[in-house]
């Protein structure tokens, strides 16, 4: 097994385990609380409106907005880490069919693995810091993934030399 293939397969499995572990932690310790916060703050906002208490309604909807912002990203991170890990493993299995040199394959594997880790990490960091840093990490990660996926598609489409 080539080094590039081993990197994609091992990296993919580790990333999937990482994503599942994160999901397990999230489901046990955070998700129900987040859903409760979203549902109750929304209902409180409308009840505040029914009681003609605009200040309560606005404050509750602000809470709803904050909770939903965090929840959406935490769920997305879980799905993307595991989804990207599956793409890495599936691409890794067929890496020998890529009509590229070993050096390019290794570069491609490193790019795909790094991007697959960084992109969801950047999204997760946005729940802690809404500045440009986390966004830059997410953008860098997605750029690496796009570059790697584009090259994979080209490489798989090329007819192998006889």
């Amino acid at each position, binding site marked *: 097994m080539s080094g590039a293939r081993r990197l994609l397969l091992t990296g993919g499995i580790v990333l999937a385990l990482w994503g599942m572990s994160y999901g397990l932690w999230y489901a046990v310790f955070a998700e129900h609380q987040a859903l409760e916060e979203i549902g109750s703050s929304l209902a409180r906002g409308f009840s505040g409106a*029914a009681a003609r208490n605009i200040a309560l309604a606005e404050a509750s909807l602000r809470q709803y*907005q904050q909770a939903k912002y965090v929840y959406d990203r935490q769920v997305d991170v879980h799905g993307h880490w595991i989804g990207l890990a599956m793409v890495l493993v599936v691409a890794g299995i067929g890496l020998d*069919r890529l009509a590229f040199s070993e050096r390019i394959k290794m570069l491609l594997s490193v790019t795909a693995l790094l991007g697959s880790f960084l992109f969801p990490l950047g999204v997760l960091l946005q729940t802690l810091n809404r500045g440009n840093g986390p966004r830059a990490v997410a953008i860098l990660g997605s750029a690496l993934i796009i570059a790697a996926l584009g090259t994979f598609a080209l490489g798989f489409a090329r007819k192998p030399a006889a």
Partner: protein
Amino acid sequence: MESMSSSQGAMPLESDTVFVQSQTFAPLSARRLLLLGGMGLILVGMIFGDIFAVFVLHQNAARVGASLAAASHAALGGDSAAVVKNFQNVGSFLENRGTKVDTHVHIIAFGYVALMLALLVPWMTLSATTKKRLAWLLLCGAGLLPLCVFLIHYVGLAYSPLQAIGWASIFADLGGLLVIVALAGFLYGLVKRFLSAERAPVEDELLAGSSATGRSLLAGGSFLVLLGFLHGTYYAAVDLYRHEALDYAILSQISVGAAGENTTAVESALAAYGRLQGDKAVNIAAHAHIIEFGLLAMLLAYFQPYVNLRAAWKQRWAVVLLLGSVLLPVCVLLELNYGLVAGGLADIAGLLVIVAMLAMWIGILRYTGKLDAGGAT
């Protein structure tokens, strides 16, 4: 049908080349169980998804919208108790929808896992019997979990010994446990081989073969995943933050309008909220489906040597699969502007993917039949 009578043709099949050496595809072997079971799970999940999309999804969304509107009108009339009651209804409708989405997603995801494991089986240092038992365990869990998740909404807490969790949830968890145990067993086999000092190189005919159909599916699948990722990036850059801001702004408009007894403001905000939810839903569905179809095409590429159909038909079914995989997400995106016409086309595209997969599944069944009857030499 030409595709169903290929074995008598004069031209040799691509799959013939692997008949003699196929030691890993014996009757009821782990690879055969995982491949046929995995494809079967994906087919069932897709058919369920198509039925769900046609008969449940839109009706359920309408009920959620109606309950939210009723909660807004209750707020408008100053009736706090009715607000709470209507939000409880929203919760119930969302649970109904959520369990059906979860059923669809989990059957298909377990199908993908089974296909990936089918590829990795030769790299596992486990006895054939253990691999077979683990494969059965995985397939049982993969069937039990989605079935019980589907039943959660209907069974509820009936006869449950617990206060908050019903029998359907308990059996769904049992299904999940079976899957985890099976996966742990397979992983143990992989690690055992990886750590072994004297491991022999694996000769797998599936990975060695590189047919035109396999290449089309692999390249097409990678391209679909890339397209899905590009769409997701575009959505995140252009729409995500706008949608999040709008979500808050519209709900705020509803509550302020209700507190100020402004019916017009509430009605217009409710209409805007419905459009926003629709916009978000179609973007997320298109993004998820194109990537999943891409991954499916890539996985199926590896199993093409087992598809016992003429090369021309194999290529046609691959094209049909890729065509449906592109059309479905595109039509889902167009649903906002073209409504039911685009929705109907999306369902037809889903059907194309299902038919193409079914054809490949039948091709693999034909291969197993031929193999069990003594193979072609």
